């Protein structure tokens, strides 16, 4: 498993990462989501030891990840701003990477067909989507133990995204690969991630299994007869509330059952329904709690 412990980093006077903790299990797809510039890419670069942390440490399978350590050979990073060497075709880049990884030729050929990619086309002449597919194909063919995908599906069409997820899920299932994926497309991550870390301003605000996170943060709608002061509900961990007409919509971390009991006891409850919450809604709620997007 990957364990990032109290990772902190300053760029000059600017604190980019503040005591970041990440725990991703073997065979898990971990979604790293956060506001723009919150430090997701910086975390990836620390995991790959491109940057050196000021404080904290990183472990993978119990082994400390340090600059030039052997364990890095089991990591593969696909960055958000893709780079391919000048005039390289996918086949040539495959040959080059073969000198560093045990690339699977079979997997490579299979994925080329699956994504319908021309291996003899110069990579820099490919479209943005094709480039992402090419980088993804290479990363899967390398068969790493830890795969870091930085905004890999952002800007891709739905069909390609689906293909990406199919391949990724199969790889994780077959090889127990750990995948850390960052994206702004939270709906996509909602469908694929086992665990999610929500970042804001260099901190991990929340890290949880997605299902657990959805259980922890609930949204209910209810209607009451007579007046109601939302302050009454402060003991139920209310994160947000809105009133639409006579219906209150509340996001809370406390017990939904206790809330219902309380409302029935203190008011005449006309309506009480649980609403499902997407990752995107959880994300907005968490970041809203941290003041993001609430600036005047």
């Amino acid at each position, binding site marked *: 498993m990957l364990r990032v412990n109290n990772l902190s980093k300053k760029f000059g006077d600017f604190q980019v990462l503040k005591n970041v903790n990440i725990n991703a299990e073997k065979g898990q797809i971990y979604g790293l989501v956060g506001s723009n510039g919150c430090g997701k890419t910086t975390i990836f670069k620390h995991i790959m*030891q*491109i*940057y050196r942390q000021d404080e904290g440490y990183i472990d993978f399978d119990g082994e400390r990840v340090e*600059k*030039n350590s052997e364990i890095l050979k089991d990591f593969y990073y696909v960055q958000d*701003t893709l780079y391919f060497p000048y005039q390289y075709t996918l086949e040539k880049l495959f040959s080059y990477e073969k*000198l560093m*990884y045990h690339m699977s030729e079979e997997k490579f050929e299979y994925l080329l067909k699956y994504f319908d990619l021309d291996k003899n086309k110069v990579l820099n002449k490919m479209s943005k989507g094709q480039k992402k597919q090419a980088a993804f194909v290479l990363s899967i063919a390398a068969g790493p133990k830890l795969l870091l995908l930085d905004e890999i599906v952002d800007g891709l069409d739905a069909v390609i995204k689906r293909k990406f997820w199919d391949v990724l899920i199969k790889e994780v299932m077959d090889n127990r690969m750990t995948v850390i994926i960052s994206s702004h497309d939270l709906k996509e991550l909602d469908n694929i991630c086992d665990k999610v870390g929500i970042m804001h301003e260099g901190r991990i605000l929340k890290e949880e299994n997605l299902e657990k996170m959805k259980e922890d943060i609930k949204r209910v709608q209810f209607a009451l007869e007579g007046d109601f002061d939302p302050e009454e509900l402060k003991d139920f961990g209310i994160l947000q509330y809105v009133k639409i007409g006579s219906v209150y919509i509340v996001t809370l971390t406390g017990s939904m059952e206790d809330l219902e009991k309380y409302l029935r006891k203190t008011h005449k409850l006309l309506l009480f329904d649980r609403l499902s919450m997407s990752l995107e809604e959880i994300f907005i709620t968490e970041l809203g709690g941290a003041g993001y997007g609430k600036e005047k």
Partner: protein
Amino acid sequence: MEKKNNFMPLLIYSIKEKKNWLLLSTVIIFVTTLLIPYILRADTEFFIMFGIFEMFALVFINCLVDDSFLHNEAKLTYYMSKPVPLGRKIGINIVTNTVFTLYLLVLILVSVFLQDVDNEILKVFKMLIPWLMAIILLSSLSSVLSGNTLMAGAMTIFNFCLPLIILLVIMFIFSILENVVTGFSANVLYDYFIRNIYKLDYLYFTRYVDKSIDLVYLLLLPIILIFIGLLLIRFIKRRKNENTGFIVFDGYKYFVAVFACLIIPASFSINFSRSTGIGSRLVISALLATLSYYIIIAFIEKSFRISKSSIKVFVVSMVLFALITGGTVGLASQYENLVPRPEDVELAYAGNQIWAVNSAEDFLEGRSYQDMSFKEWKRNHSMIIYDDIDSIRDITDLHREVLKDQTYYVSPDYYGTGSFVVAYWMKDGSRIIRDYRLTPEAEFRKEHEGKNEIAGKLLSSYEYKKQRYYYLYDEGYYGGRNLYAKVRTMNGYNTVIEEIDLKEIRDLLKKDIDNLYFGNTSFAELLMSYMRSKPIAESKQGYLVEIYEKISDEDINYLDELYLNENFTNTTEYLR
């Protein structure tokens, strides 16, 4: 995944990737060093030298291109995310470029041999090879230190020239010293420093162009390369890839800024050391250094707002520079009034020719590689260097007089000079060389008396005449030679009126020279012995006598020219 040791496969891959460069370089070198000179039937050596220049350019560009991945975030992230440590990646680039350089060297050698160029040109390879090896390593080092490829190129040149920049800064200190401590010359100190302490000819291997490779060469080259290599390893380990900007190491940034900001004031101070007063020179130098530092820092940091740490570094550096300069001046001041005991001196010179003293130094130290005796050398260079105790005593006395007063009398009939050079080669092997800036004065004063009296003694001494007019006074030289004199009148300068055997006028000339008396202008005469007789040259009176030795009918060796004025009564009477 299994672990792979991938150095060799990656190296072979990297060398294969050079095939386009190899092809291009082959075409460039062959076209410019073979084809063009063949078509033009031109000087092949020039084109070979041009080919060598191209080779430098190709190697330099290749090194910078290969390490340019350090200066682009996406590229850097790509390569750094691969299981190839930065040190290994740069090592592969260095080995690849070394192979590329060897290939280019072979191309140049093929051109040399195909064109049958004088093999002397190959001597330069003894210097070129260390330069190329240093450039390969320095460009990698500079790329690691820089955050921009163009800056890496500039820093490669800076680092390569760093020993020269340090020398310039030292010269800056010497140029200040020469204004503060009487008798100390920046040029003399520079010559001493460069010859005995800061041996740049070894460091840059320039001395080996005309010299065979020795043990020093074989030891120094690996030492220099290992030193650069160790620096490279150290900075690779310490490089922070998140740092952006033209230079990614703060320490190195300030190092460059401080040294670079001294280049302009140093050049100014050195060039104007004799024409500008020390006070104004120091003020201007300080202003230029501050301005240069600000511009350099603003450029490197890409901001017109200078940081507090930059100001601190500048202030500390300038204080340090002032302390070093002050210390050097303080040290030199202790020797300001030093005049050696005549008994301790082996050879002494008094005149105005600092270059001649340096030249004598070279000869005595065996650096000028001339196969002749010191006596012959002195004759050939018209140098008068005394080894007799009386003359040496006179020179030390004259030296003391100059220390007391730095003016001298010059009659309007003479050209003035600003320099009095005194040099002692001591018996213990050390040297004392002083260069005094003197003020010529048209009015004779009491302070000039002592100098003229001692100079007069020197000029009338047999030792002086034996060296100055060796073809007359040195029996050892005169005997058995065919010496002649061509006589011209000063108003018919282009026509030789008579060509006579020197024997005819030797005794007359000696008699006239023995009678020469310079009186109040003796010191000026001592300084100006090679340019005297302005009145004759301008009045077009008297004779010009050219003394020469006829070695054979075709081979004539000119020894001296004498302007014979009214003081040469006996000779002019004879010639008339």
